[in-house]
C-alpha cells in the first residue's frame, strides 16, 4: 500500500473542496438565472402596462413628430430583446430611471426608504424569535395538552387574520382608546431630523447620537407595527419549532440524557433545543423574507415610510419606474435572504456540506 493515511486524507480534503467549488459555482449560476428571470418578469410587466411611457414624457398635446422622436430616443422602437438587454444593463448599473412622484432617481428613493422597512422587519423578527421559539418548545414538551392547543390556536389565528385589519384594530385599541403607544409614522413630527442620519435606522441613529428622547419616541412608534408584523413570524416560527422539537425529543440521546440524571431543563433547553437551532436558523431567515410581504400592508396601515409604502403610493399614481424598481429591489432582497438561509444551513450543519 503506497497510499498513507495522510495523503488519502489530503486527497479527500482536495476532492471535497473541489466539490465545494463546484457546488458554489452551480449556486451562483442558478442565482444568476433566477435574477435574470426576475428581471424578465418585471420587464414584461413594464411592457404590457396600459400607461404609455412616451406620453408621460411628452404630454398629451405633443405632435406626431415629437412623439416619434421621443419614442425612438427612449429606445422603444428597438426589438424587444435589445430593449431587454438594455434594461439589464441599466438595472446592473443601478439605474431604474426617475420617479414621477419625487422626480428623483428611483434608486436614491429606494436607498432612502429601505432602512425603514429593514428596521420594522428586524424588530418584528426579534419579536417572533423571542416569543415564537419558547412557545414552540413549550408546545412540543406538552404535546397534546392545553399549552400545545393554545400555541396551535395562536398560530392558526395568525395564519387567518388579515395583517392590515390586525394593525387597524391595534391602532384603535392601543393608540385610540388606551393611548399606550404613539400613532402612525416613524417619529412624532417635531422629532423629525433631530438626530443626524447615519444608518437610516432611527433606533440605532438616536442611540449613536445619544438622544434618548428620540429613541423612546421611535420605540413607541415601532412597537405596535412590529408586534403586529411579528405575530406572523411568531406563528410560523412557533409551528416549526414545535415540529422540530418533537422530532428531537423522540431521539435516543434525549432518553440517554434523562437516564444520566440531567435535569429536564437541561435536556430540553440545552440538548434538544441546541440541535433544533440549526434548522431554525433557516426558518428564521425565511420568515424574515416573508415579512417583506406583510410589511407592504403593515406599512400602509401605519404610514410607515418603507419600501411597501413607496411601491403602493407609486402604484396609485401610475409611477411605473418606481413600482418596477421597487419590485426588483424586493425580489433581489428576497432571493438574497433565501440564499442566506441556504448558506447558513450549510455552515451550521456539517452533514449538508
Amino acid at each position, binding site marked *: 500500500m503506497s497510499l498513507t493515511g495522510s495523503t488519502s486524507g489530503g486527497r479527500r480534503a482536495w476532492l471535497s473542496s473541489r466539490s465545494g467549488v463546484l457546488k458554489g459555482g452551480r449556486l451562483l449560476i442558478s442565482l444568476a438565472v433566477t435574477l435574470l*428571470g426576475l428581471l424578465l418578469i418585471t420587464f414584461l*410587466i413594464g411592457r404590457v402596462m*396600459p400607461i404609455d411611457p412616451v406620453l408621460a414624457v411628452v404630454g398629451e398635446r405633443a405632435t406626431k413628430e415629437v412623439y416619434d422622436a421621443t419614442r425612438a430616443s427612449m429606445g422603444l422602437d428597438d426589438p424587444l430583446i435589445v430593449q431587454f438587454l438594455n434594461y439589464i444593463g441599466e438595472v446592473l448599473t443601478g439605474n431604474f430611471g426617475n420617479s414621477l412622484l419625487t422626480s428623483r432617481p428611483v434608486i436614491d428613493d429606494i436607498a432612502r426608504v429601505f432602512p425603514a422597512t429593514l428596521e420594522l422587519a428586524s424588530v418584528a423578527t426579534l419579536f417572533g424569535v423571542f416569543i415564537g421559539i419558547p412557545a414552540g418548545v413549550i408546545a412540543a414538551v406538552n404535546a397534546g395538552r392545553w399549552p400545545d392547543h393554545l400555541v396551535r390556536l395562536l398560530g392558526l389565528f395568525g395564519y387567518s387574520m388579515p395583517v392590515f385589519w390586525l394593525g387597524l384594530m391595534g391602532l384603535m385599541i392601543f393608540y385610540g382608546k388606551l393611548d399606550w403607544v404613539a400613532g402612525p409614522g416613524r417619529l412624532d413630527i417635531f422629532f423629525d431630523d433631530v438626530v443626524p442620519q447615519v444608518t437610516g435606522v432611527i433606533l440605532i441613529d438616536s442611540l449613536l447620537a445619544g438622544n434618548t428622547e428620540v429613541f423612546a419616541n421611535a420605540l413607541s412608534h415601532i412597537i405596535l407595527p412590529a408586534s403586529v408584523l411579528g405575530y406572523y413570524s411568531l406563528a410560523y416560527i412557533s409551528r416549526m419549532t414545535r415540529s422540530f422539537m418533537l422530532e428531537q425529543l423522540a431521539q435516543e440521546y434525549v432518553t440517554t440524557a434523562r437516564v444520566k440524571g440531567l435535569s429536564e431543563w437541561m435536556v430540553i433547553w440545552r440538548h434538544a433545543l441546541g440541535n433544533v437551532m440549526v434548522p431554525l436558523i433557516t426558518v428564521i431567515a425565511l420568515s424574515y423574507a416573508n415579512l417583506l410581504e406583510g410589511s407592504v400592508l403593515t406599512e400602509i396601515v401605519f404610514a410607515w415610510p418603507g419600501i411597501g409604502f413607496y411601491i403602493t403610493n407609486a402604484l396609485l399614481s401610475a409611477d411605473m419606474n418606481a413600482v418596477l424598481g421597487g419590485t426588483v429591489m424586493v425580489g433581489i432582497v*428576497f432571493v438574497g435572504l433565501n440564499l442566506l438561509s441556504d448558506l447558513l444551513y450549510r455552515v451550521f450543519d456539517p452533514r449538508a456540506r
Partner: protein
Amino acid sequence: MTDHAISHGRRSALFAWLTSETPSSRMQARCVQWFLGWLGLARNPLAMLGLAIVVTLILAAIFAPLLAPHDPLAQDLGRRLLPPGTDGNLLGTDELGRDILSRLLYGARITLYVVALVVFTAPVAGLIVGTVAGYAGGWVDVVLMRMTDVFLAFPRLVLALAFVAALGPGIGNAVLAIALTSWPPYARIARAETLTIRNSDFIAAIRLQGASPLRIVIGHVMPLCVSSVIVRVTLDMAGIILTAAGLGFLGLGAQPPLPEWGAMISTGRLFILDQWWVAAMPGLAIFIVSLGFNLLGDGLRDALDPRSGR
C-alpha cells in the same frame, strides 16, 4: 320487522359495503377510500368546525338576496355610521348608511368567486407543469423548474401588486394576478410526487404496453398527484382570501361600490378611532372564513396524509 329495523339493516349493509376490505369493483374501492377519509375527518371536531364555516359561507353566498335585510348598495345618509345592534341594522351601517350585514353577505359572493376562480386555474397549471417536468426530466425539467423558482423568488403580494399595476385594477385582474403568483408551489409538489411515481413498476408496465407519455402523465401520474395538491389547495385558500382582501384594501381589487371585504376595511379605516365597527366587521368576516379554510385544510391533511399527522 319494523320500518326502523329495516332502515337500520340497510344502513349497516351500506356501512359494510363502504368499509369492505375486499372491494369487488373499482367504484366500490373508490367509495371505500372516500368514506374512510371522511370518517377520519369527521373524528376531528376542529376540522368539522372548519367545514361548517365553509358551508355557511357557501350558503350565505347563494342565499344572500334572501338573507340580507337590505340592498347592499342602497344608501341612506340619514342612517349613516349607526353602531351595531341598532334596530334594523344588526351590524351597524357604514359612511353612506348602507347596511353592513347585507354588504357582508353579498361580499361572500365576491370572496367565493375569487377563491373558485383561483382554485380552478392555479393548481391545474401547477399540476401540468409539475407532472410534465417530473416525468420528462432532462432539460424540460430544468427549464420548467427554473421558471417556477423565478416566480417563487418574489413575495407573492408584491408580484401581484406589480401585475395589477400593469393590468389595471379590478376584480378580474386581481384574480389573474393571484393565480399567476400561486401556481409554483403546486408545480413543486406535483413534481416531487411524479419523481416517486415515475420509477414504479406499474408505470413501467404501462410503458411496455405502448402507452404514450401524454397518456401516462394524464391518465396515471396526475390522478396520483391530485390528493396532495388538493390538501395544499385547501391550506392555501386562506392565503388566497387574505391576498385578495389585501389587494382590495389597497384599492386594486374589486372597485367600489362592490361590497368586497378588503375594500370595506379600507373605507372603514377613515373612521377607525370613533366608528370602529365599519372596519372591524368585514375584518372579522375575513378572519372567520380564513380560519374555517385553515381548520378544514389541517383536518384534510391529517386525514389524507398520515405521515404529517403530528
